[in-house]
């Protein structure tokens, strides 16, 4: 089942009063928190058919690649209505320091600019990057106004039930993931020792609390952390049921081909940014850049089985550009 850029409603979040949950769920099935943004989302749904499933832009300027990829998808207005609170999930925690292991700040900065240009009220970080992250690109100095919208994550967590989860029935997730009107997933595509690949779906673990992620690894009783990849992959697919992103901007510019997720390892410089609303489709494309077939990456097929997206690239419309 494909839902264009509309999210599934929140999972049965025990800490959100039932009445509030139903109110949100009634809004076109989207995970929206304010009625003011509904018309924009309705319009987006109506025009979704004209846009490609994926936009891929290759070039040396990763910031501009990102802007152009969103333009190819129909523009940021399709995804971010004025006044929205946007949640960004970067794969750039402090422990990913080595080349090709974290989302480029150029890609992150472009996302911030896009949201600001669309009239976002606030940009909430779902996981904080290390100090100095935003300032690394020289162009950050010209984006001070846009960056002023970015709010650090305060580290508040919420227990969520996952009714359709097969291995994961409950998770503790960052409150910002649930509170934002628009959820943008900003992973890097890279090698991963356990799952073979890390992209949008795997990055969702960045929105989960440590105890939840530990369950992914040892909840089946596996002796080693990667001893049960099927269970780990199923947990990742299940967790992604909690909230589907409105937009994925995947950094496939410079990434680990070996020794992921931490590195150091061999780097491929594909210089691409992959954009799409469907995290399964974005991962399906992204894993091919590492020489993998989507059908061979368990979490991708398991997420597709949940109806979270399409991994058959032959069935996807992919628009490419080089700048």
């Amino acid at each position: 089942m494909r839902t264009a850029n509309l999210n599934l409603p929140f999972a049965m979040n025990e800490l959100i009063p039932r009445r509030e949950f139903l109110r949100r769920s009634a809004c076109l099935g989207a995970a929206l928190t304010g009625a003011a943004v509904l018309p924009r989302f309705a319009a987006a749904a109506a025009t979704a058919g004209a846009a490609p499933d994926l936009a891929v832009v290759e070039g040396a300027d990763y910031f501009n690649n990102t802007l152009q990829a969103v333009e190819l998808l129909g523009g940021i207005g399709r995804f971010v209505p004025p006044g929205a609170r946007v949640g960004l999930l970067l794969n750039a925690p402090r422990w990913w320091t080595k080349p090709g292991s974290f989302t480029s700040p150029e890609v992150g900065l472009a996302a911030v600019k896009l949201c600001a240009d669309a009239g976002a009220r606030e940009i909430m970080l779902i996981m904080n990057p290390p100090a100095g992250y935003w300032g690394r690109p020289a162009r950050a100095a010209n984006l001070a106004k846009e960056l002023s919208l970015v709010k650090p994550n305060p580290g508040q967590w919420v227990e969520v039930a996952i009714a359709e989860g097969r291995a994961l029935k409950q998770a503790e997730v960052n409150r910002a993931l649930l509170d934002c009107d628009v959820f943008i997933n900003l992973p890097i595509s890279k090698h991963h020792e356990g799952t073979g690949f890390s992209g949008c779906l795997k990055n969702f673990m960045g929105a989960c609390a440590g105890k939840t992620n530990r369950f992914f690894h040892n909840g089946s009783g596996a002796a080693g952390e990667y001893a049960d990849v099927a269970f780990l992959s199923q947990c990742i697919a299940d967790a992604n049921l909690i909230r589907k992103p409105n937009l994925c901007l995947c950094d496939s510019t410079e990434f680990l081909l070996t020794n992921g997720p931490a590195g150091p390892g061999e780097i491929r410089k594909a210089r691409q940014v992959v954009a799409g609303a469907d995290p399964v489709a974005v991962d399906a494309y992204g894993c091919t850049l590492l020489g993998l077939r989507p059908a061979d990456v368990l979490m991708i097929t398991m997420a597709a089985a949940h109806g979270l997206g399409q991994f058959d690239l032959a069935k996807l419309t992919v628009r490419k550009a080089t700048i």
Partner: protein
Amino acid sequence: MTPVRWFPRVLLAGSLVLLAAGAAPPDAPATVDLRNLLPAPERIAGWRLADAPRVFQGEELFDLIDGGAMLYQEYGFTQALACRYAGPASASLQVEIYRMSSDASAYGIYSMMQSAKGAAVDIGQEARLFDDYIAIWKGSYYISVTALGPR
């Protein structure tokens, strides 16, 4: 970042770290403070410690490399040191020294971090140089020095 530009720096830093590591008593690896294995400042002119070295033990390794820690633990991780050196033109190197439970386990993790693209380098018992990092094995130590580029 132009990785080729950093090759000599990576090699230099890797060499110096290993020279220091070579001074460690090989029969008492668990008693040596890993900080003592870092090269003396005068031996790496142009480079300085950008932050205080941190030492990690047991589960603390997840604070350093998160999901990457699992492989090291399976191979017999004992202790690690991580630090960053700042150099010319805003260049930055990350040095990680891993003390493993035995020579065999150190070689094991070293071998897992290899690929055919690395060039053999005459450092320690075995070392390979890649585009932006060098991996070194000596005794019960595995060392990586990675070019992080301008910061």
